[in-house]
């Protein structure tokens, strides 16, 4: 149950990180979205998500199933006979806290230019429907779980992070870059407005990740939970160094935002196999995650997909890497497993890419997804919220 709270804190972590890495004139907007997202996640999950994700035995091995609307209590819900050491509600609330994560990831990548309404609309559908459907494939006993060599994703490198990452990729692509990011005379930097806020965000995310991974043990077995804690801690630490070295080699600066992204990439990377790895393997996975995230940021900038916070690199690239790593390292490593992992990555990717494309594209064609140019230049805070994040301070832009 503590794990549930830690996952809750991650939403604050995301809110802080994304606010810190964007400009002061869009801060209210980012915080507004990231405050509503967990609320949306909790409510939609209660209404429909939980049943979509865990439809029950009738749908075992299937693609989609719905066990009813709302929450209907099983018998003996309040005793731990429901699941060793866990009650029905413990299970529900832990899963519900997870749910909103996918939308938070998208929020970072589309920041500073997306319209509020369409984004919230997308979030409701993505969190309420797409995420639980994907989740069901593996965690709800769906077909990915019943492969010969079952697809393995311990706490959601693919099921959670890549789902968010694909949505982020599609959203950032369909929106186009922020004004002034890629100009005729080359790429321009748009620095985030508060490094302390971003740092607080990453520490809180790391903190929450212990719950994210630790809680996914879904039992209070101290042996396994402690192992997961260790791999989570080591992978994050190694990710910091992976990103630090790569960024230094490429840019010749000690870039704290890259170190922060590297920590997250290390964490996303270990998420799929947190219970399968030893210390050394966790360090390698984290370190490579940290390298990949820096290369990812450079790559997406090169193809002019503008992701202000690096969400695609962290969650999509990190998620794919972590999922594959289960096939290469640790207790399940085998060629068969690599294939299963690739199937999982591919199927989930195709589904998420498609559904988020459909949603963003039809929103774009109908009500539009991007604020108009003047609003973007003046800032979303003034225009969408008639507010300022820091009214007492003299700020630029």
């Amino acid at each position, binding site marked *: 149950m503590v794990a549930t709270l830690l996952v809750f804190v991650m939403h604050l972590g995301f809110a802080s990180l994304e606010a810190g890495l964007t400009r002061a004139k869009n801060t209210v907007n980012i915080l507004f979205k990231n405050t509503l997202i967990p609320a949306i996640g909790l409510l939609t999950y209660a209404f429909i998500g939980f049943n979509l994700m865990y439809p029950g035995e009738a749908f075992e091995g299937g693609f989609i199933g719905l066990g009813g609307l709302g929450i209907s209590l099983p018998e003996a819900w309040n005793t731990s006979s429901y699941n060793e050491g866990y009650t029905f509600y413990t299970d529900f609330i832990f899963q519900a806290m997870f749910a909103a994560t996918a939308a938070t990831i998208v929020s970072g990548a589309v920041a500073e230019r997306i319209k509020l309404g369409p984004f919230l609309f997308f979030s409701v559908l993505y969190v309420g429907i797409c995420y639980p459907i994907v989740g069901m494939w593996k965690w709800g006993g769906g077909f990915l779980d019943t492969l010969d060599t079952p697809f393995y994703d311990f706490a959601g490198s693919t099921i959670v992070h890549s789902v968010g990452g694909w949505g982020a990729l599609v959203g950032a692509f369909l929106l186009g870059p922020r004004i002034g990011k890629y100009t005729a005379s080359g790429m321009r930097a748009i620095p985030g407005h508060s490094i302390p806020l971003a740092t607080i965000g990453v520490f809180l995310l790391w903190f929450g990740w212990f719950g994210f991974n630790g809680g996914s043990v879904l039992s209070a077995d101290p042996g396994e939970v402690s192992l997961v804690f260790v791999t989570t801690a080591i992978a994050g630490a190694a990710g910091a160094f992976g990103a630090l070295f790569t960024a230094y080699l490429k840019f010749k600066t000690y870039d704290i935002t890259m170190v922060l992204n590297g920590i997250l990439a290390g964490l996303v990377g270990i998420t799929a196999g947190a219970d399968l790895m030893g210390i050394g393997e966790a360090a390698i996975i984290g370190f490579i995650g940290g390298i990949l995230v820096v290369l990812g940021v450079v790559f997406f900038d090169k193809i002019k997909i503008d992701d202000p916070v690096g969400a695609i690199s962290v969650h999509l690239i990190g998620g794919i890497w972590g999922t594959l790593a289960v096939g290469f390292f640790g207790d399940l490593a085998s060629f068969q497993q690599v294939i299963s992992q690739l199937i999982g990555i591919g199927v989930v990717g195709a589904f998420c890419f498609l559904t988020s494309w459909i949603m963003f594209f039809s929103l774009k064609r109908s009500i539009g997804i991007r604020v108009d140019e003047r609003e973007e*230049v*003046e800032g979303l805070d*003034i*225009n969408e919220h*008639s*507010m*300022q994040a820091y009214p007492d301070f*003299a700020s*630029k*832009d």
Partner: protein
Amino acid sequence: MKKIEAIIRTSKFEEIHQCIAGLGVKFFTFYEVKGMGMEHPKPQTYRGVAYEPAYIPRTKIEIVTADEHVDEIIQCILSQGRTGEVGDGKIFVYEALSAYRIRNNDTGEIAL
């Protein structure tokens, strides 16, 4: 020697900068100011109370230059600073008596 003070839209700074740089004017000073004028600031709301912030943020550019450059600089600002909507700002010109370069005591137009 003249001093040109222009109060411009902050969003037009870059264009104006390019234009006067094109004239060879590489030296100037600018800072954020607040303007009262015909354009009204966007109303804001806080906890149900709507209010107009008392001013519009603007940028002020100060260029001290030799008399013969004044006109072309003003043309730059007029042409690049215009949107045609209320609130584009003003240019004022003043006489400057003397100028010094701190680095090497240069005085007069050579110091500009």
